[in-house]
């Protein structure tokens, strides 16, 4: 078992691109080697030790590597990007692209996460105890293929384009989300326990969105196909009556997207 502690040295000016903070890269490295890993800050590359005090105890494979980050890292981007195994725990807030393209392992953030958390995620678990920014589990700008596997849990709220281009996996938000939740979704499941705003499921062609609160400015391309009580989605049981819609007919003649909305 390896425990690696990164303690933030204080406030950061220009945002730092730290995709090196990843169990696969930290595993088997000594304190000095981790401190020496290079990250970009604007136009210059600096060692990770500029930004963190590093403590290493024990050693192990990536699967057995836990990275603990203490302090505010909301100006550090790409933590855990592409990670395949192990665990990252952040006792504070995280910056953009947290866990982007991650394929395995788990990330836990005690505070908030910036935009593009879990972007194009392939697998693993990403748990944000606070709130998240825009584009959670979505595709990169310009692409229509977002998260394909794994699970993202947001205990707070998230902003716009959550699950944009979602093709697989699961996103659960305890609070509310904003515009275009599940835009261009083709698979997977989005569960929003709060409410959503306009464009929910816009251009979706597959997968499922369930909203336990209200959907404001409901998308015009959805047709109601019935009502269900105590809807079972995978292993999640919703309570009460839900109206079921199919869409988005704005995209094509035979869309396969399902949208559940709690009846009042």
């Amino acid at each position, binding site marked *: 078992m390896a425990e690696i502690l990164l303690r933030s040295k204080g406030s950061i000016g220009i945002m730092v691109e730290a995709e090196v903070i990843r169990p696969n890269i930290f595993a088997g490295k000594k304190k000095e080697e981790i401190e020496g890993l290079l990250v970009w800050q604007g136009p210059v590359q600096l060692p990770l030790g500029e930004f963190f005090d590093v403590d290493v105890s024990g050693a192990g494979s990536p699967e057995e590597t836990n990275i603990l980050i203490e302090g505010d890292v909301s100006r550090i981007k790409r933590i855990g990007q592409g990670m395949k195994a192990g665990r990252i725990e952040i006792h504070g807030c995280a910056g953009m692209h947290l866990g982007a393209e991650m394929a395995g392992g788990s990330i836990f953030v005690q505070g908030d996460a910036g935009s593009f958390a879990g972007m194009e995620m392939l697998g693993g678990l990403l748990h944000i105890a606070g709130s998240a920014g825009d584009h959670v589990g979505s*595709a*990169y*700008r*310009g*692409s*229509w293929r977002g998260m394909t596997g794994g699970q993202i849990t947001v205990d707070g709220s998230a902003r716009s384009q959550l699950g944009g281009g979602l093709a697989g996996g699961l996103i659960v938000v305890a609070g509310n989300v904003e515009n275009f939740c599940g835009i261009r979704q083709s698979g997977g499941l989005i569960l929003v326990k709060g409410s959503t705003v306009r464009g929910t499921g816009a251009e979706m062609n597959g997968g499922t969105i369930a909203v336990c609160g209200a959907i404001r400015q409901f998308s015009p391309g959805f047709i109601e196909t019935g009502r269900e009580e105590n809807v079972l989605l995978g292993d999640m049981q919703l309570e009460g009556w839900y109206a079921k819609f199919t869409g988005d007919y704005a*995209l*094509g003649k035979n869309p396969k997207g399902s949208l559940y909305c709690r009846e009042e």
Partner: protein
Amino acid sequence: MAATMIIRNGYVFDPLNEINGEIKDVFIKDGKVVADLYEGEKRDAKVINASGKTVMPGGVDSHAHVAGAKVNAGRLMRPEDHYKFIRQKTALTHSGSGYTIPSVYKQGYDYVAMGYTTVFEAAMPPLEARHTHEEMRATPILDMGAYLVLGNNWFVMRYLKEGDIEKAAAYVAWMMRTHKAYGIKCVNPGGVENWGWAKNVHGLDEPNMHFEITSREIIHGLAEVNELLGMPMSLHLHTNNLGHPGNWEITRDSLAIPSDIKPCQKTGANWAETKMNSHRVQSVYLAHAQFSAFGGTSWRDFQSGAAGLVDYVNKSDHVVIDNGAVPFGPATAMTGDGPAIHDLYMLSGQKWSNTDVEMECGSGVIPFVYLKSSPISSIQWAMGLELLLLINDPWKTIMTTDHPNGGVFTQYPQVITWLMSKKARDDTAKECHKWAYDKSSLGGVDREMSLYEIAILTRANSARTIGMSCRKGHLGAGADGDVTVYDIDPDNLNLNDTAALTAKLARPDYTVKDGRIVARQGEIVAVPEGRRYYCRPYVDDALEKEMLIDVKDWFKYYTVGVANYPVPEKYLKNPVAIPVNATEAEALVRS
């Protein structure tokens, strides 16, 4: 800086000089190939030891979309094409990004790293000439030029309809000089004009809207104009119905249209020495034949139509084609054929961009992915290779991917490997949809191209076809000192280790430009500025004045003033003007 260089003891493949793998030295002085050097010069020369290696002239790409408004539209609409393909800046080179549509710097470096030194932009709309030149001047190292899109131009259509071929020639000549363009490109003749009204044309004898001219008349007219002026390259044709099942027949019939026109180059260029005739013999150069060789009648019974087209090309001496190979993977379809891109949009539902270029032409851009699991993509892969392997005379063929339409130029090494190795083709056929071999004849083709033939398809013939063999595509005395040294020993060529062959083609040991090493095993080591070639054809003053009266009259329909229309020469970095039709005896006058 002007280097004296000896490339020693390599196996030289120089088809225009009929040198087929002979071990010999290549001498370069003041940037040009020379027959020999003085002893003193030899002592001071930079020597590249090429023993056991393959030496070819620098690669020449005669058809790629690398500069201008539609390329940039592709970049703008595809951020996802960029974020995973990053090139860091070095002390010598700029940063860059992009895979199918890289930024101009990265594009230049990537071509050079692959052994190419000359690249021509395949479609420059006149109104976008300024933008195209801006991108070309920012492209490092490469020598470049651009073909002017004229097949749906209002003046061209009007003059050809009126039967005034001389006025049409005067207009084209003026346009070449005005926009610093190199050759005549004709895209979906008549059809793009109709596309302004959401229509197209589907036959060669179908008069288009308002101009009432047929594509047959446009193709013949522009080919005639081309030879009347004596342009270095022939008419470059993108046929009607491109991308539609069953279009191989209209392609064959289109190629037959200029068969009565004799090629005629009247350029003022100094021609470097070659053993073979280095002047072009074709009167039509067909662009990306793969997209115009579709068989079947619909996507359900889609199949390769290459055999029929190949049969015609094998029988004809006035045609050269480039293939527009499909090496699988992401692409960005971009063409002046707006309706063809719209059809692709209707199939794929992808984001799509379309432009109407006023009185001149149009264009469309759409992201596309060729999947090995897709039956159509798999057949297109097979067709791209069939066209090159079934046309017997390599001097009728050029290897391209119609970058970035069929694939990306960085995939050329993969395409060459398929041409050289049947095993490579069979291996890929096993990975892709079975229609690749079931619906084409590729599976039965045993031909494996030699390095000599590859040198024809990637250098000698691309240069000859576009009239650049005056200085490019060979290593005769007087040619530009552009050389590629591959770490390939032709005596110990292992066609079964296809991955190694591709890797060696992708990263030559040396790329030499004008006698200077610019890339070493893929790493850029010098960044000289390239040249920009354009043609300056002349016609009789009286004829030009008569034509310009019409131009000034119709310019009221343009959104720019006629004074702001031309691209001044100072806009180009290292411009090289090629005088065409420039002597008294040649000047085109009213008959």
